[in-house]
């Protein structure tokens, strides 16, 4: 979408709300309703990449050092990465703490 959704007026919407541009989902930060976030302990991390593999929203990415982080703009805090992490390097921490 060409502008933020809260700026759209009713008559500016496409008929049936059809979206014509491809890939515009990335413009919407969907991580704002998360209550827990994953925190990596790189001392325990063995760089196996299971967190990256299991993330249902593909928010986990590999850093230059080969460790992993989650893009918090999109992370929903589901905790699957922490659950799947074999060495227990990921802890779910409550937001705002």
């Amino acid at each position, binding site marked *: 979408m060409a502008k933020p959704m809260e700026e759209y007026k*009713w008559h500016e919407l496409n008929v*049936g*709300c*059809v979206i014509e541009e491809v890939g515009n989902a990335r413009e919407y930060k969907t991580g704002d309703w998360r209550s827990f976030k994953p925190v990596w302990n790189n001392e325990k991390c063995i760089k196996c990449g299971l967190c990256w593999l299991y993330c249902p929203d593909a928010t986990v990415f590999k850093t230059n050092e080969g460790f992993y982080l989650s893009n918090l703009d999109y992370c929903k805090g589901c905790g699957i990465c922490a659950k799947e992490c074999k060495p227990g390097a990921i802890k779910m921490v409550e937001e705002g703490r």
Partner: protein
Amino acid sequence: MKKGIEVSIAASIAAKLARVEAIAAYPITPQTHIVEHLAEIVANGELDAVYINVESEHSAMSACCGSSATGARTFTSTSAQGLELMHEILFIASGMRFPIVMATVNRALSSPLSIWGDHSDVMAARDTGWIMLFCENGQEVVDMIIMAFRIAEDRGVLLPVMVNLDGFSLSHVIEPIELPSQMMVDKFLPPYSPLYTLHPNKPVTMGAYAMPELYTEAKYAQEMAIINSKEIIKNVMDEFGKQFGRQYKPVETYNTENADFVFVALGSIGENIKTAIDELKGEGKNAGLVQLRLFRPFPSEELFSVLKDKKRVAVIERVMPAGAPNGPLFQEISSVMCTNSLLMHMENYIVGLGGRDVLPESFIDIFNGTACEKSTVPIRDKNFKVIGVRG
């Protein structure tokens, strides 16, 4: 030239004349004859359409949405429980602005199980965002189906249209019907050119979700589309009248000019009311009939201009308004009167439930004010009268 033909068969021929490209349907009484005959037409190679056999009406409407999204002219037909099973997809079809046309053969809802005609099914689906037309006879069914595609596919409308016909008392009756030629229909109804289609060469997203920031605007846009469709519907009806010689209006009247008393009704029951009106006329009494061809969008202005100077209005409905003070049609008409600050004497009668015969005598009794004495058991907290209930 008129031809004696079953109305259901005529409805399927109308869909064929409209050159539908996709049909998804599930059989349900009393609608089955329509899709059965369409299946035959497709199987015989008389119509180049995809006929999708589905396992329920929920899937039928879903398949219709899918085929309409690809830009195919889509038709289906259903009744009663089938319409209720489609219910959630009805909203999706109208919200995604798919110009699907559906012949709804009106039938009572279970329970108790009844296969006969009344308006329980369509009244339960009245706020789904579909344009709703009601037919009085077989000729209208054919004409409305052809007009329905023209209305639905208009770029200013792009909404699904439901053509309502009464179960059995219309669907299974053999009537003399004039079937227009393919050439005439082709002239009236150009091929469907969709605004957006699903195509691999140009990907689009249909049916995406809307966050609270956008849902209100989306629904408002949809509401404006159905409200603005009224003028387009009138134009299509006028153009149809010019081309085919049969003129329709959203609100039709019969003998209303001279009458202080008018009936308001939907569907085939209008013919019985007209018979009653003719009999009353013979006795020197004047009653009129207001029939709604168009129910959604509700033709408020047209209805108000007919009813405003009347002394007594009797709203005839074929649905039991469970727990409501009045029937749905009565409530809508009284809300039109209220918004125009006009209080008038209005009565609400429930007739013909589950296929119960309604004779012209009942309407004469309603006119004379004796209907209730004869056959009505009063219900506390209710303003409507149920005609013919044994107490």
